[in-house]
């Protein structure tokens, strides 16, 4: 059974946000996901990191799947399990075989994004972008998202409350196994699957607004959305696009993980908060460089939009179109002076909206996607030679970052009660 996210989901067009089963979903490439995991594991330790990520996935997946089941005709547990594995595959997360009953069971995972994705791109010729090799020691299972999702899928299938079960990955291809194995068993804590939905988003966001050159961004967004609407996991549950591995996740997943990690750092390592914030921004910067840059340099972009000319304005606007098409929010240019400054605004991103509605004020100054991407966009606009086609690899990124003149300040955020998100990138 193939699940069609585009026809089942909801699109809040004025805010460039997407929802499935009443949960906000966003697209990210493997590179960002790996870096995200790495940062959370640095903050929490690997063991606790897996635990926190699994719980976040469990909560987010429960909200998404229960919302989806509520929106579909009545179904049996077997049918619900089928829906869950189809949704998982359609999101580019891999294949789950859910051999589970009311009290749990065993789940086989093939091509799971986090474990299998580690080896993807190695040994492929002609793969100019690829996914950079993992730099985190693989000392245990890595597919926390799959484990949490499997537990939630079982609970939703059998009308159980969230937290009655739990998922643990006991075997992972990243450790050399043939397939991943997840054990779903009795849970140890009840969970509150909070998250952002289309109604709360519409109520919580300020009126939408645009910025400079909206007329140039909108057509690119339309083309990208049309393309992405047709993109779903293949028979393996894998989305290979734009020279990398692409997934969709519930935005709540990233936000729950970051919020829990932040609380742990505040409690256990308060002197490392500066580093934690900087690494969240690094994730955003790296996302812009590798994801947006990778897409701009891809064959798909060349076909849909045309090969990048290297004009900085074109690069900036292309990146904003991508952010919107990926569901990050309606990012706009308020001001841009090439080589000098970039001011980005948005009525809300998937991070700040969660911060406003659920995370309260606790994440003030601890949000990374918009500020980090602002710097990453300037690296792409002013540090990359777009002709001939560039090699946007880790080596170029490190070189550009080490000599980067850009600093960013987050001047406004709806998460703090402001009427918009705003970041300013300037030369140091």
């Amino acid at each position, binding site marked *: 059974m193939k699940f069609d996210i585009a026809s089942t989901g909801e699109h809040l067009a004025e805010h460039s946000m997407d929802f499935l089963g009443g949960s906000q979903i966003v697209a990210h490439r493997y590179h960002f996901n790996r870096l995200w995991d*790495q*940062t959370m594991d*640095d*903050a929490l330790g690997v063991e606790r990191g897996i635990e926190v990520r699994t719980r976040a996935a469990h909560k987010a997946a429960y909200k998404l799947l229960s919302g989806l089941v509520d929106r579909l005709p009545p179904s049996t547990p077997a049918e619900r399990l089928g829906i869950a594995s189809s949704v998982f595959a359609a999101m580019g997360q891999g294949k789950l075989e859910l051999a589970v009953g009311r009290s749990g069971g065993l789940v086989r995972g093939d091509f799971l994004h986090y474990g299998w994705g*580690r*080896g993807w*791109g*190695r*040994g*492929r*010729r*002609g*793969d*100019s972008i*690829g996914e*950079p*090799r*993992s*730099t*985190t*020691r*693989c*000392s245990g299972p890595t597919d926390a998202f799959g484990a949490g999702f499997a537990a939630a899928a079982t609970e939703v299938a059998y009308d159980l409350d969230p937290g009655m079960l739990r998922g643990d990955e006991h075997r992972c291809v*990243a450790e*050399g196994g*043939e397939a991943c194995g997840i054990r779903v068993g009795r849970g140890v804590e009840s969970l509150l699957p909070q998250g952002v939905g289309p109604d709360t988003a519409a109520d919580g966001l300020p009126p939408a607004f645009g910025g400079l050159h909206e007329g140039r961004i909108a057509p690119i967004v339309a083309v990208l959305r049309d393309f992405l609407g047709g993109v779903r996991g293949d028979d393996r549950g894998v989305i290979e696009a734009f020279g990398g591995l692409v997934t969709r996740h519930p935005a709540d997943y990233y936000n729950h993980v970051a919020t829990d990690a932040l609380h742990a*750092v505040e409690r*256990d*390592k308060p*002197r*490392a908060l*500066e*580093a*934690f914030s*900087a*690494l969240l921004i*690094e994730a955003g910067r790296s996302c812009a460089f590798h994801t947006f840059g990778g897409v701009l340099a891809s064959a798909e972009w060349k076909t849909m939009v045309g090969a990048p000319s290297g004009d900085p304005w074109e690069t900036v606007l292309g990146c904003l179109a991508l952010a919107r098409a990926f569901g990050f929010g309606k990012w706009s240019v308020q001001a841009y002076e090439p080589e000098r400054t970039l001011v980005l605004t948005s009525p809300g991103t998937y991070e700040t909206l969660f911060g406003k509605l659920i995370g309260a004020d606790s994440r003030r100054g601890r949000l990374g996607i918009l500020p980090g991407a602002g710097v990453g966009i300037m690296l792409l606009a002013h540090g990359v030679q777009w002709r001939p086609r560039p*090699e946007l*690899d*880790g*080596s170029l990124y*490190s070189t550009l*970052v*080490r000599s980067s003149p850009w600093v960013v300040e987050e001047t406004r955020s709806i998460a703090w009660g402001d009427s918009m998100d705003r970041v300013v990138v300037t030369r140091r």
Partner: protein
Amino acid sequence: MTDLNLELEALVSPLQSVQACLVIDTRVGELHLAYVRGTMSLEPEEAARRLAAANRSQADAFSGQDALRCTIERASEIVVLEPASPLGLVALFFEGGTPLGLVRMHVARVVSELGDLLPRRDVVVPPSGAPEPALTSRSAEGTASRSGRKLLDYLGAHAPDTHAALLRVSLQTGLPLSRLESPDELTSQEFEQVAQSVQRILGLETLTL
């Protein structure tokens, strides 16, 4: 093309008689890295799978030994399969008619220089050719000034994402960045924390202090 494939290309492409080099991960029997000059009749991935399977069959036929060295001679090419590590099998494709002495010499050279390009048990990018950090010892209660600086210099030289390395140490250890920017003042306990963090970031089993 990935950085590692580029490294393989740099190693193999100067050897004019070598038409292709495949590094195969024997755990999964699949391609790990590839360099192909021109085209191959099979996709490198498929060729790797077939060669790995054939090598396994031969190994089974010879009392279940691990991967075997094997030379296949055809009119159009000479293919040498050479176990290069417990996890890595190398397949080198030479032009047909290449003298076998030259073939053996090239195989030996490539295998001896593959080093970090071979599959590993973990997925860490190890510091290629990195020397062991020469760190001075310190007294139990004293500071570790020279050691701390050398340790962080070593990290800076070999970390996979150099620009983020110090941030990661801070987050892993809980030490503030300002403290790490003055490694001369690390206490022994802090030094131990930093050393463990460096070890984890670099994926080193041991760090000789």
